[in-house]
């Protein structure tokens, strides 16, 4: 517990100081409340609009998690295919890199045309932005297999599949998990961007509150989505630390 406090009190203190500062600025009238809501107003909105916000958070969370799950499964599978076929890797990897640079905002209206208004578009949006780090990290992890161990597997006549399952995938696990960690934050962003266009979730709450000039509600929704992203990253860290516990120490 002591460790927890020595680590967390500086940022918490900063949060309190900045909140008080903004509160004071708004109260005194230096900044107009419709430009920047006072922290107290944001917290008030979190309570007053809790039903709407929680419903939105639930919808966003489900879409982001489904998108992330799809990214994880598809990303690792694609990386495995790349590691099995040098030709496919060479053919596809440049496009995967190109694909990553496509701005999702520009693509979101097209997704609506393909998937309609609602959850499928949001999931697709979360999936598209989060798959690339999974592919890139998995490819990197699968490529980085110790050549001596590959030689050992070859010497003992291991099949391609055995080498993949017993050597390459486990060895790539740390890289895959760090890809998933990056992807988790992106999946939340992708979901909210999808919701701006396709509706539903916190994205729609933000969009609607903006048109109603309810900046307090906008900030409340943004705060919730950040907290959700943080919780997601934290959970993934926890899982990967558990999974890699037995051999983590050698890697450090």
């Amino acid at each position: 517990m002591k460790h927890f406090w020595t680590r967390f009190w500086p940022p918490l203190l900063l949060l309190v100081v900045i909140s008080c500062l903004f509160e004071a600025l708004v109260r005194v009238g230096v900044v107009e409340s419709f430009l920047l809501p006072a922290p107290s107003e944001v917290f008030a909105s979190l309570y007053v609009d809790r039903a709407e916000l929680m419903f939105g958070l639930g919808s966003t969370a489900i879409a982001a998690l489904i998108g992330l799950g799809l990214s994880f499964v598809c990303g690792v599978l694609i990386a495995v295919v790349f590691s099995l076929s040098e030709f496919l890797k060479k053919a596809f990897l440049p496009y995967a890199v190109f694909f990553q640079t496509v701005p999702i905002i520009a693509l979101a209206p097209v997704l609506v045309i393909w998937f309609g208004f609602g959850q499928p578009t949001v999931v697709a949006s979360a999936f598209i932005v989060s798959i690339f780090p999974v592919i890139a990290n998995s490819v990197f992890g699968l490529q980085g297999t110790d050549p001596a161990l590959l030689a050992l597997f070859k010497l003992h006549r291991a099949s391609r599949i055995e080498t993949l399952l017993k050597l390459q995938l486990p060895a790539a696990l740390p890289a895959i998990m760090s890809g998933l960690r990056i992807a988790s934050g992106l999946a939340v962003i992708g979901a909210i961007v999808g919701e701006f266009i396709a509706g539903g979730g916190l994205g729609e709450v933000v969009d609607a509150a903006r048109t109603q000039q309810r900046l307090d509600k906008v900030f409340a929704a943004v705060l919730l989505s950040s907290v959700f992203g943080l919780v997601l990253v934290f959970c993934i860290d926890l899982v990967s630390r558990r999974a890699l516990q037995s051999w983590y120490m050698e890697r450090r």
Partner: protein
Amino acid sequence: MPAISLEQISKSYGEGAGLAGAGLVIPRLDLKIPEGQFVAFLGPSGCGKSTILRMIASLEAPDTGRVKIGGEDGVRGSHGENTRVSFVFQDPHLLPWRSAIENVRLPLELERTSGDHTELSRQALERVGLGGALDKMPHQLSGGMKMRVSIARALVTQPHILLMDEPFSALDEVTRFRLQEDLRMFWKASRMTVVFVTHSMSEAAFLAERQIVLSQRPARILVDRVSSLGDERDEHTRASLAYAQEVRELQLRFREGEEGAS
């Protein structure tokens, strides 16, 4: 029939491979190693000792010539069905997510060896003195213990041919001496063919029945001699006059070979 025979093998690497000797590592090497012999390859680092070892293991194919294992072509992973080959690297290279016994099991799993894999692995670990560390994870073991696990992993298949690439060079001297003595014991008990690459003359003198000294690349055989030490070698051997003379002889022949070459 020799266990290993290299017939006119050559190998080049890198820029201009094959062009007028550029990048040439091994030029037309001929060598026969009889079954059950303990051979040490000596030479300066980078001379191609490891490449020869990798070609014997069929991990690399020679540009020209043939590598025969047990009378059959050993090229491209197809050893004669009944010839089991094991390899020990300079570093232990254990799978960090597997315990000691699971690491030793690996070759049995991959080769689908018949018999009780767990029992065979346990026996192999006991033989290298790690009977009490079966379920330890690699990060819980010392460098010497990891190398012992690595040796157990190589011995568990009861190989006909054991290839070792400077396996003890990263260990402290006490551990190295003990492992050298143990290796002699394993060899005497099984009479497998051992090809041991090292750059230490004292190590080669202690371990091997036959010592082959290679030149700087392109690697030619400078010295090919039979040890004058007897079969019985243990910790006392290192203090004996015969051993000192053996090391000295090896050094002299090495120097002669170098001068003759230049």
